[in-house]
């Protein structure tokens, strides 16, 4: 029995032993924060003192790129840094802090520009921010997609949270709704992470869909080749539970790609342990930390970093992952879909992707 998700619970569920930590060599990971969302070193130290006793870990960030401000810590920043350093334990960790200090700066764009200007970067970056696709211009999204390609071709893995609104909902007039995809989650050149919850919230059980887990189909980016077969398989196998086709674009980039627990986390923020924190903001650094461990193993064997993971992930067809097959995420609250978006199913689905990491099996699959 447990009272919420802590590093020990995550490590138990995903089969990380105390020996599964970074060796500290030539490997690093990062989280990006925007708009004066700061982590506090004291929160991280307290979190690790409370929850990090069962595995070797670091309690300090190695590098802050940007301005680390004072004032209150942000919950988002606290969560991201505490959990990427819990699964990616003992891995050198950076924080990119992009406060957008100039009144006309766009912090997300500043971060993207920064990546184009730094030759040495961590191999894994996790980002927990996103916007509705329909709130952004196509030109902007296409260009940022190119920036993600630039990072991927350098061997950098970019992980984005899939969002916390399930399939989302956009009202397009009287009695006409459609699902509402999120960007950058919908970019074909990032790895998007959805969310799950324990079947029994007080035990380490198998995982089911977390109803908030963002997922669906892009209206901007076409479906990349690497996922066509998986998505086609899903659409053919679940015809009975699919929402009406007017709600989504079956030829668009489908997401998420994988998932992890996203519910009932403990976070220390402003020196206060806070229970029941949830969101794909939690699952994304958790997956990022594990990919960092795998990168560490690969680098120690003289192999290159994983880089853009999706082509390889989809070729694994779920190998190394726990398939999540129960539950649906939320969608439009109308008569046609009655609040329901897509439902999880065996193999890939647009709620939890291929599933959640079984670390030793995923490591074995990605070490070859």
């Amino acid at each position, binding site marked *: 029995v447990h009272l919420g998700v802590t590093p020990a619970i995550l490590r138990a569920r995903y089969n990380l032993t105390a020996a599964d930590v970074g060796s500290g060599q030539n490997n690093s990971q990062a989280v990006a924060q925007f708009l004066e969302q700061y982590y506090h070193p004291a929160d991280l130290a307290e979190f690790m003192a409370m929850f990090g006793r069962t595995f070797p870990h670091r309690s300090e960030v190695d590098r802050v790129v940007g301005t680390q401000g004072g004032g209150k810590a942000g919950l988002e920043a606290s969560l991201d840094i505490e959990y990427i350093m819990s699964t990616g334990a003992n891995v050198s960790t950076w924080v990119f802090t992009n406060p*957008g200090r100039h009144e006309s700066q766009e912090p997300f764009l500043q971060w993207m520009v920064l990546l184009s200007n730094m030759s040495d970067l961590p191999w894994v970056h996790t980002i927990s921010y996103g916007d509705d696709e329909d709130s952004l211009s196509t030109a902007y999204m296409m260009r940022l997609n190119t920036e993600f390609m630039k990072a991927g071709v350098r061997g950098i893995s970019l992980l984005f949270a899939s969002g916390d609104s399930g399939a989302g909902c956009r009202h397009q007039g009287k009695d006409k709704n459609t699902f509402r995809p999120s960007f950058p989650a919908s970019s074909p050149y990032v790895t998007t992470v959805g969310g799950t919850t324990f079947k029994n919230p007080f035990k380490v059980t198998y995982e089911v869909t977390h109803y908030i887990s963002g997922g669906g189909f892009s209206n901007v980016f076409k479906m990349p080749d690497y996922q066509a077969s998986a998505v086609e398989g899903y659409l053919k196998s679940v015809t009975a539970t699919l929402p009406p086709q007017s709600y989504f674009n079956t030829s668009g980039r489908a997401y998420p790609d994988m998932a992890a627990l996203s519910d009932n986390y403990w976070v220390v923020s402003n020196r206060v342990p806070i229970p029941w924190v949830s969101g794909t903001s939690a699952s994304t650094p958790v997956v990022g930390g594990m990919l960092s461990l795998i990168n560490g193993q690969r680098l120690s064997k003289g192999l290159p970093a994983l880089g853009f993971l999706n082509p390889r992930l989809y070729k694994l067809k779920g190998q190394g992952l726990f398939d999540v097959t129960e539950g649906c995420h939320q969608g439009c609250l109308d008569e046609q879909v009655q609040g329901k978006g897509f439902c999880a199913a065996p193999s890939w689905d647009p709620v939890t992707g291929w599933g959640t990491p079984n670390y030793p099996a995923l490591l074995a699959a990605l070490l070859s």
Partner: protein
Amino acid sequence: SGYLEYDQDVLLPKDWTHVGRVDPSEEVELTFALKQQNLELLEETLRLVSDPGSAQYGKHLSLQEVASLVRPSELTQKVVRRWLQAHGVSNCRTVRTQDFLQCTMTAEVAEVLLPGSRFHRYVRDRRSIVRSSAPYSVHEEVHQHLDFVGGLHRVPPREKDVRVKHRPSKGE
């Protein structure tokens, strides 16, 4: 002139409160995304280095190699710089891939440079930002050399993907 981002939502989220027009002499910082080259080759290279079935798998590029691939053409760089200089905009810095230019100028100059733009100040939680309340356009001479201009419309969401509940949730 023409619009680079004709479909950009220019309305700020409701939690930002409008304060008023900015003084014409106040500085704004804009990011110009210059058109890159060889994007098809970039995409193909990414496919090859990311596909475990490819002989190129894992052969990642350095930042310098990426820069060589995507760097905007001489013409693009020249046209954009000339356009900026013609408006007295000289306080600019570029990046190693040379595909972004970040420039500082007064709001008055920015509104002439980008016809249609109207800079206003907005506040939320004691934080102040400057954004344009109307879509911007660019002169036809530079239209084909730019992807978009940053610093006019977009604000990051507030803790979009994290929430604290009042009780634990049950499994499905």
